[in-house]
């Protein structure tokens, strides 16, 4: 069963368009969304959350097609990079506010997260660091029996220790059945740690959406000599990089010859080399 289904989604802006996006996020999985700045990751998430109005297409969340209802929002936990709680409220205030908004708000669970994240309860939000603000919003997202977490660049700007903590929490979240996470990030190493599937968006279009392990197993990063490069069909080169001392190329595994020096690429390398290939 799909937690989120996006069908033929199109959103047009004067200088950018999200074009005919089709995406399925299965229950019990974590989907990582990658792409360069301005690719459309946040636009896609904004459309899913009803923050902007798609020009075409349909979004179905937990079997609820069309506009996001209040009932469906009860089951969503959201962490956005730049949209936050107001500066003048405290974590105690947040608890009171959320208690009246969420039917299944768990105050003790919220305060437990505050303690775990070392968030002061009586200090105004304005005095929190960026990492603390992210943790605060995540504490809210995790304290009302959410079935789906949606995170848009939630780990960017955070130090590695805080990022590692957040990723552990996401893995804990997935220990309960029928949950799903959609997470966009520039930090592909974070997505490699937690994601089951990866979707790559480039200039408003989906380039691929695949199981992470299958994706990484499907490609190889190859070190080539100029002679070897001349003998390869250009169509087999997904992306190419002429370095100072060598030539590196991303190729599908079935095109790799025994004498090639190759290794499994990282997610970041797949994205970088595909991006090079798309630009050529």
């Amino acid at each position, binding site marked *: 069963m799909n937690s989120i289904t996006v069908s033929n989604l199109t959103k047009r802006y004067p200088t950018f368009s999200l074009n005919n996006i089709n995406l399925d996020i299965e229950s019990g999985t974590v989907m990582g969304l990658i792409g360069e700045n301005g690719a459309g990751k*946040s*636009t896609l*998430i*904004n459309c899913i*959350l*009803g*923050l*902007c*109005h798609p020009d075409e297409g349909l979004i179905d969340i937990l079997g609820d097609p069309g506009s996001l209802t*209040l*009932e469906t*929002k*009860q089951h*969503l936990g*959201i962490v*956005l*990079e*730049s*949209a*936050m*709680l*107001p*500066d*003048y*409220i405290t974590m105690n*205030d947040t608890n*009171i*506010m*959320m*208690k*009246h*908004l*969420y*039917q299944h708000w768990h105050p003790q669970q919220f305060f437990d997260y505050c303690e775990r994240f070392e968030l002061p309860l009586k200090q*105004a939000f304005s005095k929190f660091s960026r990492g603390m603000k992210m943790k605060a*919003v995540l504490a809210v997202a995790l304290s009302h029996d959410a079935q789906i977490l949606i995170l*848009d660049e939630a780990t960017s700007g955070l130090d590695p220790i805080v990022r590692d903590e957040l990723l552990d929490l996401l893995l804990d979240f997935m220990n309960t059945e029928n949950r799903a996470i959609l997470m966009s990030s520039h930090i592909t190493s974070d997505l490699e740690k937690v994601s089951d599937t990866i979707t790559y968006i480039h200039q408003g279009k989906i380039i691929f959406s695949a199981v992470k392990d299958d994706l990484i197993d499907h490609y190889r990063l190859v070190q080539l000599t100029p002679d070897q490069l001349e003998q390869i069909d250009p169509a087999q080169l997904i992306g190419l990089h002429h370095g100072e001392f060598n030539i590196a190329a991303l190729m599908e595994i079935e095109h790799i010859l025994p004498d090639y020096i190759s290794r499994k690429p990282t997610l970041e390398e797949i994205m970088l080399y595909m991006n090079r290939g798309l630009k050529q």
Partner: protein
Amino acid sequence: MIGLLYKEFLIIRSQSKIYLALLVVYGLLGMYTRNSGFLVAMIAMYSLIINLNIFSYDEKNKWMTYALTLPANRSELVKIKYIFSSILTVFMGILILFVQMFISSSTPFAQQALTILVTVLITLVLYALLYPFIFELGVEMARIMMIIVFVLFMLFFIGTLSSMTLSMDLLQLPDPLILIGAILITLCLYIGSMFLSIHIVSKKDYNA
């Protein structure tokens, strides 16, 4: 909706010391000059400043974007602003009325109450004019409009209305029907403005 309304009230807590201090200063000024016009003007001033501060903070933190991810819809988020503004304005009016009664104990209560009522109604009309601009253009872009409207209000009220109402004899208080009419017109403008703001907000994209 209660949770969202609670959030609006929280800003008063964070800035209450400043407002109380100003209230004391203007109150003393009023006592010294035997003119409570400053105090009455504070109904609009305080109410507007607090509400505009909330809008500013909301914009800075992209609160609308975050709030729309919570179990709240766009029309609720607009209604909360109007409900809070009206509660705050009426509360300020009642507070100032009590202070004014203390300062100008010789002025009949009916006249003082009338002055306060008119000021509350004018303040609500100000909101009715301003809020659709704020929802459409944002606080920064609507600032020019706010300054113009507020200056006009201050000139009108301080220069004209305060002298009229304070010098009115008890026998010349307006017909109750006129008062009721003024209240109804204000309510219609206020509610109409709210629906216009809901329409504006329903069409907008709130990108994270």
